[in-house]
């Protein structure tokens, strides 16, 4: 072939580079998706084995109260009642969100509407720092401050759902606050101007205009905070008391899905009933994070309309 023809027909250096780059970026995105699928596949196959291989009943898993997967109950099936942990997880999550939401919204309103630029900047950086504090540090503070405080003022041993919720309250507060601030800032300025021009007071403007307009964003912030609280392991494990019993009150030792997982995985042998039962708990965690995700999607889709 004559060299000019060959040169024209062959891909140029630029084209080859482009193909190489494209392949690289496709490969990395493919890898991430593969990791997500692998996590779901592995955890699901391990978690379902409790019910298929070890013949535990799903109903008993969700409603039973006795957690002792190594032993069999009177019906010959392993005792895998996970209700105490499920209740514990949901309990601390909802309580923490319940405590944190009013404080977060109040602080966010103060930062966006009432404070000077300087104190706003200061609070912003403090909140950023708090988002970054490692969870073990929160756990350690919980252990040295919250547990004795609860013991002295509310009674009991100090370990329990109430302490867990307090620790999670402080952990999710910065998350919810900073996301609420973002959604309040996203409300167009002229909404506020229009409301004030109509003669509404500041509070009326905040309550009837700003909060309503920012509602989807605030809801998303709360769901994010709850997702963080639900999946938090170490900080809760350190203060909740780790008793796999149905909690009698907010002050009695309890446990969450994550705390049982962190304590248990190292002490059980791969492939045994006890181990598989723990993977079933991990599966619940996985499914719940999916639910939180869908909730966020649902809220943001509704908010758009």
């Amino acid at each position, binding site marked *: 072939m004559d060299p000019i023809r060959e040169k024209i027909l062959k891909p140029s250096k*630029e*084209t080859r*580079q*482009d193909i*190489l*780059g*494209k392949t690289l*970026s*496709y490969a*990395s*995105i493919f890898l*991430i998706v593969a*990791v*997500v699928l*692998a*996590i779901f596949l*592995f955890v699901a196959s*391990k978690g379902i084995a409790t019910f298929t291989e070890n013949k535990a009943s799903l109903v008993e898993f969700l409603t039973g109260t006795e957690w002792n997967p190594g032993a069999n109950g009177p019906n010959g099936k392993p005792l895998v009642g996970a209700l105490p942990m499920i209740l514990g997880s949901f309990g601390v999550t909802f309580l923490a969100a319940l405590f944190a939401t*009013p*404080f977060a919204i*109040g602080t966010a309103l*103060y930062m966006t509407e*009432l404070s000077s630029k300087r104190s706003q900047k200061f609070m912003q*950086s*403090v*909140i950023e*720092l*708090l988002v*970054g*504090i*490692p*969870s*073990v*540090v929160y*756990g*350690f*503070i919980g252990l*040295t401050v919250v547990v004795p405080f609860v013991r002295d003022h509310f009674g009991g041993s100090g370990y329990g759902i109430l302490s867990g919720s307090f620790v999670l309250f*402080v952990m999710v507060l*910065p998350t919810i606050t900073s996301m609420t601030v973002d959604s309040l800032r996203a409300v167009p300025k002229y909404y506020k101007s229009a409301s004030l021009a109509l003669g509404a*007071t500041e*509070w*009326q403007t905040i*309550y009837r205009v700003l909060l309503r307009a920012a509602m989807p964003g605030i809801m998303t912030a709360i769901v994010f905070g709850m997702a963080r609280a*639900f*999946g938090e*392991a*170490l900080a809760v494990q*350190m203060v909740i008391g780790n008793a796999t019993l149905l909690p009698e009150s907010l002050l009695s030792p309890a446990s969450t899905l*994550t705390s049982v997982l*962190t304590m248990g*995985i*190292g002490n059980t042998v791969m492939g045994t009933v006890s181990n598989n039962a723990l*993977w079933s708990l*991990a599966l619940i*965690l996985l499914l719940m*994070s*999916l639910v*939180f*995700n869908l909730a966020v999607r649902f809220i943001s889709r509704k908010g758009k309309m």
Partner: protein
Amino acid sequence: MNTKKVNKLALAVIKLIAAVVVVILAFLLGKILLSGLPHVSWHFLTTPSRSFTAGGGIGIQLFNSFYLLILTLLISFPLSLGAGIYLAEYAPKNRVTEGVRMAIEVLSSLPSVVVGLFGFLLFVVQFKMGFSIISGAIALTFFNLPLLTRNVEDSLNNVPKLQREAGLALGLSKWHTVTKIILPEALPGILTGIVLCAGRVFGEAAALIYTAGQSATNIDFSNWNPFDESSPLNLFRPAETLAVHIWKINSEGIMPDAEQISAGASAVLIVAVLIFNLSARYLGNRLYKRLTASK
């Protein structure tokens, strides 16, 4: 009550709430730093920990934390860069891309303990890598990837479309445009994101307990051969990090000064996170000024 009074009352309540939150936060930071910093000394930062007697330090744990952080970033940065470029530049607007985004979001909201367990199952048990730094680094990569990817994508998207058109008009390939024109401009944002992620990785413990392990083997800081058992660079030795150390001595530690050590270690962690945050801001501002014409 008339509206004026309601207004005053409501605004007062908001201010009160903000004040309470500030007090809580100030108490928290003050408590950590005041109870921890007195225990921090050069000796504390450099000596190995002791299991049964008082006077141990956090030297090895501190080294492990930094080493793990560097390894994690080495693995996760190229991956997230590629993925971010794909999402910002190449991804078509269709259902597949939507699914990919959803997968990344799900990965970012997975509890870190589940990511850790997955790493344990796959790398420690299945691939027989044992409790090792490399297992820990891979688990942290999974945990880190979604955030870094989103950060790269956002920074790339912030670059005006004109720049892309200019590059293409000059006859550059798309890849060339991205790497030589778009990436340099997006660099400050990307770097800020990396440093913030570094702070998160530095304090992570739940994903590491069952991947990098809970024991700090004695290492010999004069031996830098990565294939030697006692070398600090060995990838296959178990490595307890600072955050895991705090958790461990609080749940099963038997040394008499466990509380002082955790207080000191917590303060070190907080200071590290503070440094990461401040340097992220400084670096971002400075690079932005340098690479663009703004003052």
